[in-house]
């Protein structure tokens, strides 16, 4: 691939000139670690839901991005979806991360699928559906991923409002006692003459 490599600043400028006000709050976070303090860069941007697919398509024209994961964050009044990409991998210390935040209003939790652009996104989109209650429109495979089939509808474990996991579903381990409805274990413990007695003494 003979591509011109955009710096993080150039990438932000290019997206802003192409998409205008859709791209807001761009932040370029640079951090240096290790003894030689080589810097690494993360680019954060907020975009709107309608521009999600055009922006990603544009990013794919620049270079093929690696989608790490789609994350979510329930901040109360809205739900933020973070599309975490990394681009320019394969270049020594040339990779940087691009994170698009897509805010969604709680009364309209729909987001278009990007699995037609990046097939690997399907996995994490399925997870977002069940964990956050976001409806991914046109998703080719809308089944649950991690949650069991008998998990109640309308409960989304990572939400922090009334649709989150209710207290009635939480089992605190320290409150759980030995089950009483089971038969006693068939094997009886051998107590006498066991060498483990000696161990107890040095505890």
């Amino acid at each position: 691939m003979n591509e011109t490599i955009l710096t993080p600043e150039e990438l932000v400028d290019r997206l802003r000139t192409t998409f205008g006000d859709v791209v807001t709050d761009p932040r370029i976070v640079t951090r240096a670690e290790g003894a030689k303090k080589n810097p690494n860069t993360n680019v954060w941007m907020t975009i709107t839901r309608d521009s999600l697919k055009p922006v990603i398509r544009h990013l794919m024209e620049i270079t093929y991005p690696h989608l790490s994961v789609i994350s979510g964050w329930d901040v109360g009044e809205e739900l933020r979806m973070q599309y975490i990409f990394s681009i320019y991998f394969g270049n020594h210390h040339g990779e940087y991360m691009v994170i698009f935040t897509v805010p969604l209003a709680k009364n309209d939790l729909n987001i278009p699928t990007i699995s037609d652009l990046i097939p690997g996104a399907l996995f994490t989109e399925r997870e977002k559906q069940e964990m956050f209650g976001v409806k991914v429109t046109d998703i080719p495979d809308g089944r649950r991923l991690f949650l069991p089939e008998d998990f109640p509808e309308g409960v989304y474990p990572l939400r922090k409002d009334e649709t989150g996991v209710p207290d009635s579903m939480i089992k605190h381990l320290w409150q759980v006692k030995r089950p009483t409805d089971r038969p006693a274990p068939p094997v009886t413990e051998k107590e006498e003459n066991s060498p483990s007695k000696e161990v107890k003494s040095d505890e």
Partner: protein
Amino acid sequence: MSDQMKKAPYVVPIGPIHPALKEPVQFLFDVEGEVVKKADFAPGQTHRGIEWMGMRRNPVQIIHMTDRICGICGVTHSFAFARAVEQIVDIEVPPHAEYIRVIIAEFERIQSHLLWAGVAAHELGFDTLFYLAWRVREEAMDVIEYITGNRVNYGLIQVGGVRRDITPEQHPTIQKCLDGYRDLLGKMLNLFLHDTTISIRCKDCGLLSFEQALNLCTVGPTARASGVMKDVRFDYPYSAYGDLDITPILPSAYGGEINGDVYDRIVVRLLEVAQSIEIIETCLKEMPDGPILWEPKLPKLLSACKKAHGEAVGRHEAPRGECLHYVAMDGHDAPAMWKVKASSYSNLHAWIPMLEGEQLADVPIIVASIDPCLSCTDRVAVIRGTKRDLLTKEDLHRLSVEKTRRIQGC
């Protein structure tokens, strides 16, 4: 016999519990004769809701929980999580600690790849090689125990540094282990890559093309075996990896073309063991002096974390590929959001193109990118000579403490 049985293709379920799988996941295969026509899988058979639990705990508590996300990658998740929190709180990790983190992460890679090699051999029905790989893996486990005090769940990484130092007196023991591996690696490469039965079973089996690897967002050795140059340690300067000269290992490094088959994945993993040896040696040599923690007092660390606002992404190249933690903090004890993206999360989807059209006999080895978790049993019977002892959990604990002390020489 039910009608369903007589129909071809019939469905062969593999899992949730099956000898081919070291962790529970369910596969459903439509099989015609011996050929897999259609594959599907359902993960989440042991979903523990760790993220949910973490959002009710403070970062120092979480860091010990991250140790327990995976039984093999004891340091990977702690590393990625610590990096995310350090970015939010703006903690500068002492370079000495960064080097220690890298050393333990690379030891983890060695033991994880050797473990994988053993599992792969077992899946091929080659138990002799399985025993060999797991026996030599013990050397790395011993050194990990020597450094951290534990075989698994190392508890080494803390937010802002590490909890235990590697002192110059410990270098000879570590070096001895590395030298042992260097001698052994040629033998391992020869056994795995020049054995006829392994070659005929692994070559052109479980193919994943370059495009598929890219489109399905695969990471780590799975992606590299298909020719995708992708290695966080090389691409993205973080921790002490930014100081090192690392090149991603593609199968072409062993001569030969990149096919993206199971054989190439073996090549990549075994060569990465050699690479890890080099990295550890460099780190031991170049390790700068200094403290091991940004802030040794936990209340101070926690209050700094509590004040922090913001979101960050911490990444680390785990033995199986990129591991990513997204953390958001909003001025509370517990993070507002925590998302764990383990490396296998990105690789699972690649199973379907790999498996479809393959022979049923090759399913275990193709699936074998899953790693086993060995859990401690409650009691074990030991027979030495004619004397029989039944060991209880307390005995095992005492014995393991004794062994760690013996290894650490104190």
